[in-house]
């Protein structure tokens, strides 16, 4: 790795959903929270778990498993909520575990292969191979498209 020509690196937060590892850039991550009380919001897609009070800001929470159409699981002590800040809003993402902050060389990110597991490919911006670990880079703009009334992209 030290002989990489492309020295540019990006810091990412690695989290887990079932057995796969995903990554999002630290620059959009505001904080990582343990379990908090979530207030359900009726008449929203099932992946919207509700809203919670994040230091005075009402923040919507999205269950990423549900969003990706994976099997939904009850929250446990490993469950984390990653608060990401996009230009328009802040959203919390429920993930199985979040345990790593690593630097990955920008050069190691490749465009996504044709098929990557079960996750909808439109949600993926690329994959990074770091030390035998395969990290799926998420396209947050797509994953967190605003929920409008009437859109039924529930799955």
């Amino acid at each position: 790795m030290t002989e990489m020509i492309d020295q540019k690196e990006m810091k990412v937060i690695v989290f887990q959903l079932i057995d796969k590892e995903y990554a999002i850039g630290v620059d959009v991550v505001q904080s990582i929270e343990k379990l908090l009380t979530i207030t359900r919001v009726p008449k929203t897609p099932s992946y919207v778990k509700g809203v919670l009070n994040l230091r005075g800001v009402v923040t919507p929470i999205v269950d990423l498993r549900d969003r990706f159409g994976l099997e939904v699981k009850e929250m446990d002590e490993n469950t984390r909520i990653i608060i990401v800040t996009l230009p328009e809003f802040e959203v919390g993402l429920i993930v199985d575990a979040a345990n790593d902050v690593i630097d990955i060389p920008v050069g190691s990110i490749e465009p996504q292969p044709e098929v990557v597991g079960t996750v909808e490919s439109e949600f993926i911006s690329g994959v990074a191979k770091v030390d035998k670990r395969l990290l799926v880079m998420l396209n947050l703009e797509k994953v967190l498209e605003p929920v409008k009334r009437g859109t039924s992209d529930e799955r």
Partner: protein
Amino acid sequence: MDTNQYLEMFIEESKEHLQSCNEHLLELENNPEDLGIVNEIFRSAHTLKGMSATMGYEDIADLTHKMENVLDAIRNAKIRVTTEIIDVVFQAVDDLEEMVLDIAAGGTGKKDVQELVEVLNRIEAGGSAVVAASAETAATAVAEMETQQNGHSDLQFDEYDMTVIGQSFEQGYQAYEISIQLREDCLLKAARVFMIFEIFEKSGEVIKTVPAVEQLENEDFEETFAVALLTKEEADVLKAKIMKVSEVENVVVRPITNETLLQGRVEKEENIVKKAAVEKVDSPTNPKSAVVSGEKQNRKNVTAQAGNKTIRVNIDRLDILMNLFEELVIDRGRLQSIASELHNAELTETVERMTRISGDLQTIILNMRMIPVETVFNRFPKMVRQLARDLDKKIALEIVGAETELDRTVIDEIGDPLVHLIRNALDHGIEKPAERLAKGKPEEGTVTLRAYHSGNHVFIELEDDGAGVNRERVLAKAISNGIVSAEMADTLTDKQVAELILASGFSTAEKISDVSGRGVGLDVVKNTIESLGGHISIDSKEGYGSLFQVQLPLTLSIISVMLVELEKEMYAIPLSSIIETAIIQTSDIMNAHNQKVIDFRGNIVPLVDLKEIFETADGDYEADDYQSVVIVRKGDKLAGLVVDSFIGQQEIVLKSLGNYLQNVFAISGATILGNGQVALIVDCNALIK
């Protein structure tokens, strides 16, 4: 010079001055003879010129300069105020506004104003041509004046100067007229003038000079000049001080008293022609010197306004203060609930006191964020003037209660609905002059815009003395658009018929006119106002006019709600839509067309099961003997919301759900409760069809 740090202030103040120009121009149109108004406009324009030149916006300075010339000509009775002139000046103000907005948006503030400048020039020239003949006769008078400059007053005071002098007397100042003669062989006249002015500015305030300051600074004068000074110093002291400046030949200090002022006022009329001639001689100013004088004038204005005890606070800071206070309100709620659990007398007392104080604090903070509705109203006179011309109608707009204050959050939202209502009143309400005369009404229609406080609400009313709502036409239209059935139509009261024009689907695209009715109709107005937690009603008498009444909450940030429980979830229902709460017997619930209804004080009120709407229950409704119902309203319509239990009333801070969750059904926002959890706020408007 680095002007960036002043940019914000420049933009703010420019807007203010332009607004004041607009207002006074409208006033001037009604009282073309009132030169006091011209003076006001002139002052605004002058300040603007100075500021923009300092900031380096040459185009603005140029245009204001030309505008100023025209105003000056009006002020000196060289030209008369006509509608054409006012139109052109309005146009100039519009262009200036555009340039200022451009600067505010990060632009350069440049704009091609050549054409307008030419028109202004032409007006100014046309005006001076008229007095050219009289100027000649005045020339002798001027010569006369110059010869006797040591004996008699050289200074001409206008209304404004006189007021300033008059006021300064009250504050214990003395006014002196000081004539200074420099030595004939004086080399650096400007330097001497500067030194003398330094003395003046240390001891008081210079309100007028002859010749003008810029000419003095350009050495554009002979050996003498005169100054009017407001000071607390003695005449002799002043004289001695000035004599200390080298190359000063002679100084004459004469006190200005009320008598001389009065005399001046009487003489003023006669002197106008003379003065016009003098100013004409004085008027060749080049832009550079205008800049200097602009700055000078500006500084003077600042000192004049120093008595006004207000400070400008950036709105962002107030928002931060508000946010912090909201946090405090949340914690206050938490403290209250802890205290009620602990039953500790001392704690309870302290919490109570804190609640009272924070209540006061809340009022103060809310008041700080209040702005007079004027900020919305002040663009209407011009709009009405323009529209009336486009529609070929004669319309006077009366504004009452423009000083009524509203929270900024509300102010930001009501502009557009009001524009819509006014356009509607002008287009459909007020008749053409001929029609009005035929009906025996005055030719000029009156539209009154009124704002006032009442209880926890602000009312804004728009009243016109136009045609009113035509029952037949409205009904015909409502029936053809399928809003009411023909059978129902007969049973409607006049008020109900009038309110039909607010119904959605009433206004249709077929009657697009330039002014109103772009196919959107008044239902948009109604929706906007209701989404603000407000209410609109209409009262109309055919042939006599209509009255639109808009009721708005004072603020949108902190509202009173009723907390209710559905299963284990808490929801908040705004108190503004609640009529009352009731416990009803399950056996009293009736069925009408698969719709559960109850008889509530003689009204048939449909029941809405909130648990069903919000999908809280798993479907097993065990029917209790009694049901808790919250009766809410939207306009005249009622509905009963069935809930599990009432928890109580609370002040809460309204929070948005953010941009991620847009348009959640029947939820208008969220709030944070004392225990830190989020409760959703029920949007009753969405629940009533």
